[in-house]
């Protein structure tokens, strides 16, 4: 639970350095928190890691679309900072580092895991976007 405030702060500040308009910065933090909470709570309830990522991404996608309609900004403004806590950068990096140290099998496994993470994040994020676009006018 101690990690939750850091997910909020991390997403909000990265949002700011991605040049978010000031009024949207706290909302970006909320997106990061939601994605992280979805992931963390699913893990605690015993979901497999990748399923937990999927849950986090879906929640993030829904929240980003809702906020987009409420605050009249494109959803991508909320989705991109919100992704930060779940993004598989560290895994990809770990994989490359292992490759550079000749631990080929472990490195390849980590890279494959990073790709799965990214794919599932992207899929989870796309589903709410597609559904919302069917119901409402695009923002």
């Amino acid at each position, binding site marked *: 639970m101690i990690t939750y405030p*850091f997910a909020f702060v*991390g997403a909000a500040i990265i949002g700011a350095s991605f040049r978010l308009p000031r009024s949207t910065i706290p909302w970006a933090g909320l997106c990061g928190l939601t994605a992280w909470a979805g992931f963390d709570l699913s893990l605690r309830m015993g979901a497999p890691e990748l399923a937990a990522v999927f849950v986090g991404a879906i929640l993030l996608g829904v929240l980003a679309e809702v906020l987009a309609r409420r605050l009249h900004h494109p959803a991508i403004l909320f989705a991109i900072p919100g992704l930060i806590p779940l*993004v*598989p950068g*560290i895994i990809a*990096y770990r994989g490359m*580092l292992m490759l550079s140290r000749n631990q080929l099998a472990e490195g390849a496994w980590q890279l494959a895991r990073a790709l799965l993470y*990214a794919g599932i994040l992207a899929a989870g994020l*796309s589903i709410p976007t597609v559904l919302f676009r069917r119901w409402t006018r695009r923002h």
Partner: protein
Amino acid sequence: MVSYEHAAALQVAAEAGVVLMQSGADVARVEDTVARILRAYGAEQPDIYATPTGIFISLSDEETTIVRRVRQRTIALDRISAINELSRSLCAQLQEPGEALRRIREIAQQPSPLPGWLDVPASGLAAAACTMLVGGTLPGVLPAFVANLVVQAGERVCRWLGLPDAVSDFIAGANAVFGATLLDRWFGVPVGPVVAGGIMILVPGLAFTNALRDAIAGDLVSATARGLEAFVKVAALAGGVGAALFVVGGGAIL
């Protein structure tokens, strides 16, 4: 509508597309916005092909085509929002193409909402927060912030020197290890999470994810380009970290 106006509308749409692409929008949004602007100006059946490195637009009824090269790409969410707003206002009320073009150039030039002097501290703080998400400990947050200030400042210096991205990523990766190693020697903070947090915000996890978003949307060329961009970045970072670990003789990391 005379063809002169179509040519002007094409300029407006292309400029908007370029700014969007440079600000980190996904291909679907770029193509969508360009099409919306062209339709607002009465162009029918525009064919738009946007990639992260260039945008091609052609009006099939007019036999006019425009090609615009896209060079630098960062993430600038305020510009994406501003262009989006402009394209919607164009649909509601048409502006003179010259006026719209002027407005787009204004958006491209607008300064960041985050004051310049806050840029490095903010990135350091974000990295310190991320340290906690990858298994860091609470007492490690402040040291992580300090180490990441060094990494971020080094990255700005590299950019200012005009070094290629891959080179500055290599240096950033090495800097993260050096900073974390010093913290380890002086304060006994474990190295792993500090390095991890420091490179977390440099690392292209976002680029990987966006590449796959483009792939899911069916924009395969763009997905490949973004994926390769991410791969080069992560390889350079890991190379820098690996080289620095070799120099400081560090053990297992992460």
